[in-house]
């Protein structure tokens, strides 16, 4: 399965935008686990995911060719 990862804010400093080919990541909880294993720095920050431009509020199924944004706390204004 292909997932496109895009990152924002301070997360851009250690996760580049990239496409990954993975199997066995069925939902956003599993994806978080994958991310935190691969990028341990993420464990120390609060972050939210947006799956195909929808902010993830609860565990959600991921389908092939999803785009997932990793977003640190907002600081606009």
């Amino acid at each position: 399965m292909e997932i496109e990862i895009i990152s924002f804010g301070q997360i851009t400093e250690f996760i580049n935008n990239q496409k990954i080919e993975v199997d066995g990541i069925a939902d956003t909880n599993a994806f978080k686990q994958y991310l935190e294993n691969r990028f341990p720095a993420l464990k120390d920050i609060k972050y939210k995911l947006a799956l195909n431009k929808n902010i993830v509020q609860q565990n959600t199924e991921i389908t092939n060719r999803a785009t997932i944004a990793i977003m640190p706390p907002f600081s606009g204004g």
Partner: protein
Amino acid sequence: MASLNGGIIFSNLNMSEKKIKNIFVKGPITPAFIADSIAKHNSKTAIGGHSIFMGQVRKDEIDGKFVAAIAYTAYEELALEKMHQIREEIFEQYPLSCMHIYHSLGTVKTGEICLFVFTSSAHRKPAIAACSEIVDRLKAELPIWGKEIFEDETHQWKENI
């Protein structure tokens, strides 16, 4: 990226599709742009009160270093979707004649304006309340990030409190 005349980026005439207004401006929001925006309302004679909020980049001191600028980035598509939703909710909540919102992207130096929220109504109270609520919601809900750049070119990521 918006031009400073506040153009609508996904403009279309089909009323069944929602119009998503752009709020992003490249670089600082100039006093001239704000003045022009105010001037455009003199033909809207049902308006009796305007409320304006302007966010200005503050020269904060952190560990002996001064902020020189903030560089803003956003998840633009998501931010505009979310802003559209907030805009609709605020219009339902308050009897407003007008609502204009602009936020900078890219570098804005200390002392320059990075946020401009402008609401108008027949009487002042809805304009004031809506303006304040828009600013609160925008800061909490829009995926925008500010990187504070210090005079020595080091940086830290801003956090809204």
